[in-house]
C-alpha cells in the first residue's frame, strides 16, 4: 500500500519558557486512503506534532516523508509550495479571510498554485462547494455565514488543489453535535469516494472511534 506520510524519529524540544522535550522519537505512517485520528490529553504534544507533519513548524529533528519524498530541511519557499499543492488544512477556528467572498476564499490556494486558468479554478471551486451543499453561499462574504458553514467552506478550500492529505486540528472542536457529525460524514465521504488520506487531531472520542485508526499519544510518545 502507498504511504502518504511517514515520520521517522521526530524529536522536538521547547527552549522557552523552560527546556522541555515535547516530542520523543515519533515514528508512524499514514497510508493512502486512510482516515486516522490523533488523540491524547492537552499538552501531550499532539498539536505540536500536527504542525510538524504539516510542514508549518520546521524546528525539529528527524525525518518527514510526504509521498515518499523527504521534506525535512527543505527551503521555506518549497515547503509553502508543498502545503499549497499537497496538504489541505482544516482548523478548529474557521480561519477564512473575512473580507473575501466564500468563492474567493475557496479559490485563493488554487490561484496561488496557478496551474489552472481562472475559469477552471472557479469551476472547481463551485463543484467543491456543491459537493458540500453550500453552493448557495458562493457570493456571501466569509464573515457573514454561520460557524458550521464556515467550517464547510474551509473544507472546500482545503480540497481545491486536490491534495494528497487533509490535516485537521480539532475541526469539530468548535461545532455542535449536528455540525460535528456533518463534518465527520464529509470526511468519511471524501475518504471513500475520493480516496483521500486524512489525519485529524481531536478530543472527541465519538469522532475518533469512527475513524479507521486512532493514534494515542501520551507525554510526547505514541502509545498505540
Amino acid at each position, binding site marked *: 500500500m502507498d504511504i502518504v506520510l511517514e515520520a521517522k524519529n521526530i524529536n522536538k524540544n521547547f527552549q522557552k519558557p523552560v527546556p522541555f522535550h515535547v516530542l520523543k522519537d515519533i515514528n508512524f505512517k499514514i497510508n493512502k486512503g486512510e482516515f486516522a485520528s490523533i488523540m491524547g490529553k492537552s499538552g501531550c504534544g499532539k*498539536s505540536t506534532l500536527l*504542525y510538524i507533519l*504539516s510542514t*508549518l*513548524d520546521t524546528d525539529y529533528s528527524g525525518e518527514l516523508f510526504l509521498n515518499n519524498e523527504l521534506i525535512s530541511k527543505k527551503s*521555506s*519557499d518549497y515547503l*509553502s*509550495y508543498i*502545503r*499549497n*499543492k499537497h496538504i489541505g*488544512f482544516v*482548523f*478548529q*477556528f474557521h*480561519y*477564512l*479571510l*473575512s*473580507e*473575501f467572498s466564500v468563492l*474567493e476564499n475557496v479559490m*485563493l*490556494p488554487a*490561484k*496561488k*498554485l*496557478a496551474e489552472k486558468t481562472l475559469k477552471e479554478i472557479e469551476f472547481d471551486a463551485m463543484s467543491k462547494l456543491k459537493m458540500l451543499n453550500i453552493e448557495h453561499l458562493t457570493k456571501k462574504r466569509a464573515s457573514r455565514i454561520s460557524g458550521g458553514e464556515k467550517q464547510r467552506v474551509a473544507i472546500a*478550500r482545503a480540497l481545491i*488543489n486536490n491534495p494528497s492529505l487533509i490535516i485537521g*486540528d480539532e475541526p469539530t472542536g468548535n461545532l455542535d453535535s449536528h455540525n460535528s457529525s456533518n463534518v465527520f460524514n464529509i470526511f468519511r465521504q471524501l475518504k471513500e469516494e475520493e480516496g483521500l488520506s486524512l489525519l485529524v487531531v481531536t478530543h472527541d472520542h465519538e469522532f475518533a472511534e469512527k475513524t479507521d485508526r486512532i493514534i494515542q499519544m501520551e507525554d510526547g510518545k505514541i502509545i498505540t
Partner: protein
Amino acid sequence: MVNWSVILSIAKTHLLSKIKQTSTAAMGVMFGIGAYITLVSFMTGLNTMLDDLIINQTPHIHIYNEIKPSKKQPVDLYKETQNTFNIVHSIKPKLSQKKIHNALPIIQYLKTKKNIRGVIPQVKATIFYIAGSIELGGSLKGIHPLEEAKLFNLEDYVVKGTLQGLQQNNNGIILGKGIAEKMSLKVGNRIQISTINGDVFPLKIVGFYQSGIAEIDNIQSFVNLKTAQRIIGKSEDYITDINIKLHDISEAVSLSKKIENQFRVTAVDIETANAQFETGTSIRNLITYAVSITLLIVAGFGIYNILNMLIYEKMNDIAILKATGFSGIDVQLIFMSQAMIIGIVGGILGLLVGYLLAKFISTIPFETEALPTINTYPVNLDPMFFIIGISFALISTFLAGYLPSRKAKKIDPVKIIRGQ
C-alpha cells in the same frame, strides 16, 4: 515564483475593506507631497525673483577709479631705510581724478570681446536739488538710457514716463520718487539742480524712478550721459564708471581680475559685491528643503503607523495565507504593494494638490513698492520638483511599508493558529 495578480487582488481587497484608513494614509502622503510642491515652488519663485532683481540690475563687473592711498609710500622706496621699521602718520589718499583714465579706448576694447554682452559707460556726479532757498543733496547719473534698459532692466524702475523720453530730451531728467514727493513735483515740471561748483541748470522732468529703497529714491536721478558731462563741465571722455554684463555670470570673477591688471583700475565682480545676498539665498533654500523634508517624513511615519496597525489586524489572514501555501515573500509583497498603492495614489494626488495650490498662489495679488514689476506672488513650477515629489512619495512609502511587511513575512503561523 510570484503570482502578481493574486497578490494585487488580495492587496486591493485589504485596502478597499479598510477604505477609511487607506484614504487617511493616502491623504497623509497627499498633504506631504502637496505641501512640498507648494512650498518649494513658492519659495524658489521668491528666490528666483530676488536673484533676478539683483542680477538684472547689477552689473556683472563694475569698473571705476577708487580714491585710495598709494600702497607704497615714498619712504618704502627709499633704499637707506629699507631694513628699518617705518611709521607714516596721517596718510592721505593719492591725488588722482575720479574719471577712468582712457575710458573710451577701454570701452572700445571690451566691446570687441565675445564673452561680453554689453559695456555701458556712466558718469556719476554729486549735485543739489534746489527748491526755493532749500538745497537737497543728491546724486546724478549720466547714462545711455536705451542701453541701460536693454542690459539692466532700468525701465522696470521708471514708474512714470519712459526712458525713450529721456533719450529724446537732452534737458530731461528722470527724478527719484522721494525727491519728487518732497518737492511736490510732477512729470513735465522743471527742476533746478546745482553742481558743487555752484552752476545752476534747469531740467525738465520726463519721468520718476523708484527702486523701492527709500534712501536711494531720495537722492538718485538720471540724465543723458552727455547732459551729465555738460552739467559738470567735463569733456566727452570723462567717464567715472563702466558697467559690464557678461553672457556667462560665472566668468565675472576671473574677468574682473584680468581687467584690474590690464587697465590699472578697480573692477568689482557681482559675487564680491553681493556676498551677503548669496548667503541669504542659500539659507532660504536650506529652510525650504528642511521644511519640505520634515513634511514628507511626517507623512512617511503616518503610512508606517497605519500599515503596522493593518498587519496586527490581519494576523489571522497572514497565518491562513501562509498555511494554505503562500510563502513569506508573497505575504510581504501583499503588504508592500498596499504601501506602494497608497504612495502612488497619495503622491499623484499630492502633485495635483501642490500644482493647484501653487497656481492659486500665483494669482494672489502681491504689490509692493520695492518690486514695481511684480503684481502677483511669484511661483516657480519646475518639473523637477514634481519628479522629486513623486520619487520621495514612492521612496518614503517603500521604506514605511518595508519594515512592517518584513514583520508580516516573519510571522510564524503556528503561533497565531495555536494562540487562539
